[in-house]
């Protein structure tokens, strides 16, 4: 069971801090009204004030974010300003409130018996891998961490995880190229029967991870993103195609076994 149910309804979570990590903001808030989330679960976030009135008079809907870290009545979210919703959220600071619904969705499941976890992240998608690395480590399981970023300012987010091997598109940090090339090297060097892959990142990265793992018979759990209005199964907007037909990512994901997907190239993510 990788789901913790959420309190019903939206609740206020006072922002306690904002930290900048290169291109990313970490927004920390106090949540005394909810349970501890499972790694890979997500929250719907709204700024309590000035939600709407941004570029194009948006945002209107809440935005879905995997939790970066959680503990002692605190939640942390990793936010990159890429549109009117994330712009507003990434500027939140102490004295302001988030309105949150969550934890929602399914989190990551533990590695199948004896398998060593490889965590593959791209961009802002590194967030759920941080809390997952912590949880695996607390259980005595060390993770191999491979992260990919666009450039140096984005690669600064890598410090949110421990002992990461990096790739950047522009070669400014680590391997010049794709994080999935690091994954292939890693898999070449080890027995495919001994590892399980956990991945979160942009759709092309997830699709490459899915394809690599399926070809090699390596189990993989992918945390996907899709345009989402509600986060609790009401709107039917966030469907992704699977071998069993469309499923709602918010209640049947966001973590999916790679073998359930025909493709991880989710249409319309990120509007």
């Amino acid at each position, binding site marked *: 069971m990788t789901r913790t*149910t959420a309190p*019903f*309804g939206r609740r206020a979570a006072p922002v306690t801090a904002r930290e900048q990590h290169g291109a990313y903001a970490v927004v920390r808030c106090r949540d005394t009204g909810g349970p501890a989330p499972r790694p890979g679960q997500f929250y719907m976030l709204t700024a309590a004030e000035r939600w*709407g009135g941004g570029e194009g008079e948006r945002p209107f809907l809440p935005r879905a974010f995997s939790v970066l870290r959680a503990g002692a009545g605190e939640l942390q979210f990793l936010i990159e300003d890429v549109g009117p919703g994330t712009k507003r959220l990434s500027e939140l600071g102490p004295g302001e409130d988030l309105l949150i619904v969550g934890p929602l969705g399914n989190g990551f499941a533990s590695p199948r018996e004896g398998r060593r976890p490889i965590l593959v992240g791209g961009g802002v998608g590194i967030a759920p891998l941080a809390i997952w690395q912590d949880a695996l480590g607390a259980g005595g399981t060390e993770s191999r961490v491979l992260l990919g970023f666009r450039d140096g300012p984005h690669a600064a987010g890598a410090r949110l995880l421990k002992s990461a091997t990096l790739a950047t598109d522009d070669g400014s940090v680590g391997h010049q190229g794709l994080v999935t090339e690091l994954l292939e090297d890693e898999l070449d060097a080890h027995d495919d029967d001994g590892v399980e892959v956990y991945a979160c990142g942009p759709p092309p990265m997830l699709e490459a991870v899915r394809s690599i793992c399926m070809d090699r018979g390596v189990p993989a759990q992918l945390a996907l993103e899709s345009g989402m209005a509600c986060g*609790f199964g*009401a709107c*039917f907007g966030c*469907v992704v195609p699977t071998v069993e037909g469309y499923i709602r990512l918010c209640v049947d994901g966001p973590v999916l076994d790679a073998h359930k997907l025909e493709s991880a190239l989710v*249409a319309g993510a990120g509007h």
Partner: protein
Amino acid sequence: MSVGFCGIELAHPVINGSGTFDAIAAHRAFGDELFERFPFAAFVSKTVTLQERQGNPPPRLWELPGGLINSIGLPNKGLDGYLEHDLGFLATLPVPLIVNVMGFSREEVAQLVEAFAERPEVSALELNVSCPNVETGLVMGADPDETARLVDRVRPLTDKPLIVKLTPNATDVPAVARAAEHAGADALSLINTVKGMALDPKTGAPWLGGTTGGVSGAAVRAVALAQVHAVAQAVEIPIVGMGGVQTGQDALDLMRAGAALVAVGTESFRDPAAGSRVASELVELLANTAV
């Protein structure tokens, strides 16, 4: 404040719009607290069609200033799937159940109405008429004669209250409303979503997998108010008013325009418990206001 609606006793005047709240999925997300704090005075289930439907290809959503466009395409398990998998759970909700049905012909709608007519779990039926009749090509709810023929066909099949859910995408909505009333509808609900479209800013092609979709949210509130007002002038039967309701004041406005009940839809996407908040705000306003 309890209210009567077509012989059904409701704890307050706020229900949900069909297709804007899935009680089964919400129970997975929120557990039994959903039952303890159920936000609506009656639950309207998502449209049931005769056959199972996968719905439209994604993307299905586009955010607007004060609203969104959805192109969902009525995914559902079909009549048999609904009866087998959903009805039992929905019957355990602490409020009356209203089942919304849609067919692609009058005979399909008749089959659906017949199937629910004898089910004691179901308090009322809502007819989604925002769909083309495959036999005539006309959207049933856009044409008064089509609407009358549909209601005529299904009215004798059940004693349960029949609510006709009107589409705003019609030339003369009050004429459709009168036709439904004359053919024996017990109530009307409006507005359904307003037809809209968005283009992919990068390619210029339609963004939504279904090309066009339905606009909802605050953006349509003024449209809803005008249509509820116009329909209330045209008919005697009760009206469920909806469209962009976010506050008790929005709900009160629709009641002042002639609605007996008010439905919350898109606002539930922003806050799953929005129905409870709107209801408590409305009850307080009603205590201090003459409608």
